[in-house]
């Protein structure tokens, strides 16, 4: 029987002999992830279940990244629940402040997730790891608790939509633009319950960080997962993070897709998604008159080193507009240090931006840059729902790092070529 890469990974994690879309399966987990918002509920449920012992202390990752460094007393209590649980059950992959990072940048960087894995995370952007050729999906806290107990998760085998990207990417266009354009094309529920497989010659040349950005936002189209077949770029990345276990799956030539969509990437300009849905995407040039109060560069979508290299290229020798607050947040300690070593941090600070410690921060309206009433931000984050970054009457426009940096300089949404 012909299978997609998603079906092959799922099959390899069950006792079934064959599977098809729509089947309910009970699958083994290679990694179960929780953060300071979702893990406390899972931990409470786990302890109440009386199980006593976690299924595998090496296959659980706990990352306090949402409201840390603790933004208030209640957040400190929540983060503490993770530490106490990690101590009690000798969880190997607990990441304390100073060693932590935004979970979806951190886990790949630590080699904890990789090709062929089945990963669940109590965070919707867990779909990020599909960039490595893993099946990876967001679940809730109760799923995570059940995962801690059994090492398994119930899943419905999804249908797959194949997205084929052809051609050469234009200047200032990256993975973020491809995914914003795609979500704009199919809508916020365009891939509901489905796996999104990204392929085509443009993807085969796409750097790892851009692949992470794309798979990260599969959820914004309602997708269960996003995935890219592992190739030479994946393997090079995995060598750099000392990943040992690599299981390479590929979709069969005659695998079944519920839909195939093709894009000529030459035609795709840098994208911006207007409030209040990621699907309100269009070319940046359409939004040139939109004034901004804040620009945020960071998050699990675009907080990686190549994102900061791009932002620095735009910001070098320039000054942030006097009406704009530029907030730059590296996703992990490693990226933070790289940005300092490469001189990027100096460029940001010289330009008049702030360069902060890793955190999810303002992306979900946590801290480190909350918007006030009537304020407007451009952000390299993943969601622009009403009130996402603060006040219900504030607005978020989504973009890539080059556009966010150019906009910070201009004081309005701007194409980097305008500088």
């Amino acid at each position, binding site marked *: 029987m012909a299978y997609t890469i998603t079906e092959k990974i799922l099959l390899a994690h069950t006792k079934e002999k064959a599977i098809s879309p729509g089947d*309910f399966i009970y699958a083994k987990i290679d990694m179960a992830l929780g953060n300071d*918002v*979702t893990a*406390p*509920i899972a931990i*409470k*449920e786990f302890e109440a*279940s009386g199980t006593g012992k976690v299924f595998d202390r090496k296959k659980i990752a706990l990352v306090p990244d*949402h*409201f840390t460094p603790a*933004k*208030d007393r*209640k*957040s400190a*209590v*929540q983060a503490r629940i993770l530490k106490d649980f990690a101590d009690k059950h000798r969880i190997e992959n607990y990441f304390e402040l100073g060693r932590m990072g935004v979970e979806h940048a951190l886990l790949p960087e630590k080699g904890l997730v990789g090709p062929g894995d089945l990963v669940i*995370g*109590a*965070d*919707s952007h*867990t779909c990020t790891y599909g960039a490595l050729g893993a099946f990876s999906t*967001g*679940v*809730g*806290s*109760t*799923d995570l*608790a*059940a995962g801690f*107990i*059994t090492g398994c998760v*119930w899943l*419905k085998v999804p249908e797959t939509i194949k997205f084929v990207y052809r051609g050469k990417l234009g200047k200032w266009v990256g993975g973020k633009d491809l995914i914003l354009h795609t979500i704009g094309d199919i809508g*916020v*529920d365009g891939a*509901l*319950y489905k796996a999104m497989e990204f392929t085509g010659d443009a993807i085969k040349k796409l750097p790892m960080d851009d692949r992470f950005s794309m798979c990260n936002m599969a*959820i914004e189209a*309602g997708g*269960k997962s996003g995935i890219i077949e592992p190739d030479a770029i994946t393997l090079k990345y995995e060598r750099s993070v000392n990943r040992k276990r690599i299981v390479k799956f590929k979709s069969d030539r005659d695998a079944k897709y519920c839909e195939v969509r093709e894009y000529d990437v030459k035609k795709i300009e840098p994208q911006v998604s207007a409030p209040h*849905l990621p699907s309100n995407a269009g070319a940046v040039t359409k939004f040139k008159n939109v004034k901004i109060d804040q620009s945020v560069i960071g998050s699990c979508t675009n907080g990686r080193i190549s994102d900061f290299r791009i932002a620095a290229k735009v910001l070098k020798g320039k000054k942030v507009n006097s009406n704009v607050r530029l907030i730059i947040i590296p996703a992990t300690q490693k990226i933070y240090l790289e940005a300092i070593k490469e001189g990027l941090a100096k460029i940001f600070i010289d330009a008049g931006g702030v360069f902060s410690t890793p955190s999810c921060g303002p992306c*979900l*309206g*946590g801290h480190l840059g909350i918007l006030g009433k009537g304020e407007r931000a451009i952000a390299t984050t993943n*969601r622009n*729902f*009403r*009130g*996402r970054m603060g006040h*219900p009457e504030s607005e978020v426009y989504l973009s890539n790092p080059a556009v966010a940096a150019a906009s910070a300089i201009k004081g309005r949404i701007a194409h980097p070529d305008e500088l």
Partner: protein
Amino acid sequence: MKFKGKVWKFGNDVNTDEIIPARFLNTQDEKELGAHCMEDIDVTFAKKASKGDVIVAGKNFGCGSSREHAQISLKGAGVSCVIAESFARIFYRNAINVGLPIFEIKDTSDINSGDYLEIDLDKGTILNLSENKECKMQPLPKFIQEIIRAGGLLKWVKKRK
């Protein structure tokens, strides 16, 4: 099993940031989360809603984050069930896993805020008492029914062991 409730109607793509904004995610307390339910769409919702009320929405209800605080908040506000044309997948599984009843029907445009619904789980029907109209809910897959009958995922897991 039957239950009755007053309808609060919402549109398409109601997201989890609207159901319970992230600024309240530093607690897991049902009462506290319930008091802020739907706050960014309708500040008065939590005050107006009473026990047993029903949320009815369009497509893609619960899109966005994986926070189970959304289900806790809805329960805390007294919401007995959610009816929508479709649900975002993480919201769907969280609702099943924690035992917040959710139902899919093809078209919710006939149901309005203030209507009274009678939901009959055994017959799989939703009767709009205000409009005297009945519609069929999409039957839940057998596997999902098994989890619901067990009383949620953790009880199902225990039984399975």
